[in-house]
């Protein structure tokens, strides 16, 4: 167990190190998400009550759309550098490679959110920086990473993979986006844990199911 965790961390660290040098992925997610949010501040006239109504939806749509960009890169980098074969040659089980990739993507999306949330809070004038929303954000990022990593690996070999990944990723993530939006709305409206416990359960169920399912299916993705 300890050795597995160490392997997962080593794999994730490789991606983090690459990212630290290039800053491609996190920057892309942050800039794109902020752009979406900024466009919505023009597209919708933001009265305080309207901001509370549509804000959580805009926030999560922005994170989901921007997340796709980052997820696309996570395997594109491997494909462009021809390092996918190297990864597969390592004496490491496919599940651990998957979990390493998921951990990397999870960290990227989470770091991006650290920037996105405060800017969103400022632009929409609604308070999203609370313990409840942070838990929701972590659950959502984990689910995005689990589904996104599997689909990114599937679509990396397709011509026009930039089109394919969002088409696969966004509809599949709808339950998670619903859960994130509804819980965030509840928090923004002054609710507490009990008011969105069902949505939290949905998010947790989504995360657990897709963590397991994607890990199992991932071994069929990386198979030559």
């Amino acid at each position: 167990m300890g050795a597995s965790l160490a392997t997962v961390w080593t794999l994730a660290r490789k991606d983090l190190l690459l990212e630290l040098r290039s800053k491609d992925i996190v920057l892309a997610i942050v800039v794109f998400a902020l752009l979406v949010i900024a466009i919505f501040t023009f597209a919708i006239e933001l009265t305080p009550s309207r901001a509370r109504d549509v804000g959580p939806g805009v926030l999560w749509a922005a994170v989901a759309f921007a997340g796709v960009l980052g997820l696309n890169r996570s395997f594109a980098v491997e494909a462009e550098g021809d390092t996918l074969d190297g990864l597969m040659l390592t004496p490491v089980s496919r599940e651990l490679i998957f979990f390493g990739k998921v951990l990397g993507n999870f960290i990227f999306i989470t770091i991006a959110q650290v920037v996105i949330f405060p800017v969103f809070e400022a632009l929409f004038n609604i308070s999203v920086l609370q313990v409840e929303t942070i838990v929701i954000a972590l659950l959502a990022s984990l689910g995005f990473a689990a589904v996104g990593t599997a689909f990114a690996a599937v679509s990396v070999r397709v011509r026009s993979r930039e089109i394919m990944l969002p088409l696969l990723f966004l509809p599949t993530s709808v339950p998670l986006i619903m859960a994130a939006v509804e819980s965030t709305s509840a928090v923004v409206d002054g609710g507490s844990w009990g008011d969105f416990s069902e949505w939290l359960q949905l998010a947790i169920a989504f995360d657990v199911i897709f963590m397991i399912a994607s890990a199992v299916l991932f071994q069929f993705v990386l198979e030559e």
Partner: protein
Amino acid sequence: MAALPKIRLIWLGFTAALMALTLWMVFLWVPTEINQGNIQRALYFHVPVAWTAMVAIVLIAVASVAYLKTRDEKWDRLAVAGAETGVIFAALMLITGMVWAKPVWGVWWTGEAKLTTTLILFFIYVAYLMFRAYFPPGEQRRRLAAIIGLIGAIDTPIIYYGAQLWERAHPSAVVGPYSNNDSSVDGPVGLTLLVATIAFSVLFVYVASERYRLRKQEDEVMALRRAISLQALRVATTSDSTESISSAPAGGA
């Protein structure tokens, strides 16, 4: 066409007869629903196509698992047949649902759980088919497509649960004249629905099996074409080499 095996012809005739019976029952036999009027007849198509679309997802899931386990191409063909037919039936479900909802609920679209679920599944399986169209044919495409098909199937109950929660949190804005009247499903109405459901299931089996057969022929054509070009290549290379040997002295001179 002439080669249509007997069983297919029989099945086709069976489908046509059941469909004719369904049309007769829906438009002539079953009494007009008292609250909603004639538009309620759309439900005799809406419910059966919704049911067959759900069957299609089960079919894709089973075929995808079977493909990943056995690597037999026939399962992949079955999954494609299920996906293409299922996407069409899901589209029909959405259209008939909207046609019915506008006069009855007063809106084309609401966040009703089953509608939402079908819409999202429609998108997932359209993406599945697009993936297949983008990816070059071969073992890898079959394998990756099976993975997508399976993830979509795994997602189905989660989407449905989420859509139900969503529907409860946002009571739909149904303001139509009959929005408070639920039609009962018994007597002639229930019988018509039953016959229509059987008819559409039989139609689904027919269309999907035709698609399966077509897919098989496509694969055979592909294999033949590959064999022919391989053969041509072999002939070309052997004649090339003999030519170059014979022409070598002349070229050297």
